[in-house]
């Protein structure tokens, strides 16, 4: 068991020099103390996932605990009859537009924060931090009034703007942190070679920011994809609604069609699962580099 512990073989070699000590107690956690709680927790995590899969795949009215015989009737039904096809397209559009808008605006602002000293900088940073405490949910009515005045109610644009605005502060703080990690001298070297600031940024800094931008963009997409309240409030036209609103409609029906709800849930989860699998390796390093350490 101890052989799988990798770090620093020379330390292991040095071990006999301290007789009488327990060797590396921290690494010698008994295996059952890892696997037992992990298994219990994994059951708690995975049973709900299995449950929704079960309901989505077994025929209506079945009480079997395995999804067999398997059917895709619920998916077909929810995709066409319950317009999840339309909701899906709307959600993809909102998610991608939020991703692009958030990333571009946060990149510009983040660059300014990372590379310039200017008088309003401290105030701006403070505003970014304070905005973390402003709950979007409590601003629904004034936001509704603003979008009504802009004639944007019932247009996906209202949701895109609202999602972007509440994503921006954290994205900008994260991106400015990533830019600060790129040495300024690299950019200056490019200027000496005759690049202007924009070109230097594009060919020197941008490629190095890619992992960070992927993480920030993915967060923006997932948030916009998942978020429910703005879409619920600003989009009344059924053809304009998004997946979470569709799920809510299924849930609040008088007699809930459980198979359709489960299939709709799976449809809602697919893009998020893909994005999650894609960014997982950046998640931990990205957070430790940017968010917590500031």
């Amino acid at each position, binding site marked *: 068991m101890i052989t799988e512990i990798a770090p620093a073989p020379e330390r292991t070699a040095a071990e006999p020099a301290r007789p009488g000590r327990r060797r590396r107690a921290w690494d010698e956690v008994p295996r059952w103390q890892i696997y037992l709680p992990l298994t219990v927790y994994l059951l708690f995590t995975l*049973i709900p996932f299995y*449950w929704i899969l079960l309901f989505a795949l077994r025929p209506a009215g079945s009480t079997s605990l395995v999804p067999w015989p398997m059917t895709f009737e619920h998916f077909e039904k929810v995709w066409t009859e319950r317009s999840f096809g339309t909701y899906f397209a709307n959600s993809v559009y909102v998610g991608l537009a939020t991703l692009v808008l958030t990333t571009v605006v946060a990149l510009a602002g983040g660059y300014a924060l990372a590379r310039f000293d*200017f*008088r309003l900088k401290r105030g701006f940073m403070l505003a970014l931090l304070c905005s973390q405490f402003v709950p979007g*949910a409590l601003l629904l009515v004034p936001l509704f*009034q*603003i979008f009504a005045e802009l004639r944007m109610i019932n247009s996906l644009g209202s949701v895109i703007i609202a999602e972007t605005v509440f994503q921006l502060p954290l994205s900008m703080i994260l991106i400015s942190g990533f830019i600060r990690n790129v040495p300024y001298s690299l950019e200056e070297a490019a200027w000496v070679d005759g690049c202007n600031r924009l070109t230097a940024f594009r060919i020197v800094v941008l490629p190095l920011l890619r992992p960070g931008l992927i993480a920030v963009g993915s967060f923006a997409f997932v948030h916009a994809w*998942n978020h429910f*309240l703005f879409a619920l409030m600003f989009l009344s036209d059924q053809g304009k609604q998004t997946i979470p609103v569709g799920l809510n409609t299924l849930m609040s029906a008088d007699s809930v069609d459980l198979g359709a709800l489960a299939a*709709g849930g799976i449809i809602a989860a697919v893009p998020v699962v893909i994005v999650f699998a894609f960014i997982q390796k950046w998640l931990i390093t990205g957070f430790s580099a940017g968010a917590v350490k500031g």
Partner: protein
Amino acid sequence: MAQAAAVAKPPAPPRRRRASATPRRLPYLLIAPAALLMLGFIAYPVLSVFYYSLRNHNPTKPWRNGFAGLDNFTRAFAHDPQFWDTLTFSAQWVVVEVGLQLLFGLALALIVNQTFVGRALGRALVFSPWAVSGVLTSAIWVLLYNSQTGITRYLADAGLGSYGTSWLSDTSTVFPAAIVADLWRGVPFFAILILADLQSVSRDLYEAAEVDGASRLQQFRHITLPHLKDAIVLSTLLRAVWEFNNVDLLYTLTGGGPAGETTTLPLYIANKSVDAHDFGYASALTTVAFVILLFCSIAYLRLSKFGGDSK
């Protein structure tokens, strides 16, 4: 004005010389889109909430609209037991959720930080509910808690409990039922953040502690915990604010029921403004919520001595 501001830092170090060759307005141009969006869609709505909190404003009763002074606030504190009920429930919800999420998140992070066979898969599975939305969480747990075909049916088959039990519509079980559903997707957030921070603890510290004969529990208390302190303080604070404000899950899972048992203050505010059109009063309640959040956040950072002596 913008120019004057940028000039105000004249003796740039030589390294910055080329940078000053670009227009002085550049930083302002770069933050302008973000600043304008935030002014228009965060600052302005916040100010309008403050403004309306001092007015009667109800589109269905326009004859009463006008300046109200502090009437809305008096009404909340002195004459609205529902305000107190929902505020108490919000506090209860936040404390229980954040406390349990931290506890389980910390335990999980410590476990998956060990070296063991299947660690990568274990981490991926443990973290997987992280990105699941509140509405999807509700959908999943509505299926699990369903009285006819949910988990209770199979528990009853096994002789536990009785058939037809609906945890979400019984006032005595709805709170733990909703708490568990929210824990399911909330724990991974803490696990991820704490795991990220655990990776930066120097191994040498543990080895030194071992040389001194410290037990694993002592190592945890005197090395790990102090190292994690800032991350824990910050993530619990952000999570508490988030849990306070978040309405997706409870709105879709219980709708604030049964009998208003799970109505948080934000849900109550949404009901007042959206359903009852009582916008002046809802704005006053929003203002109260702001002040409470701000006060609690500052107090929490003070009491926890955030960013202070630790490490």
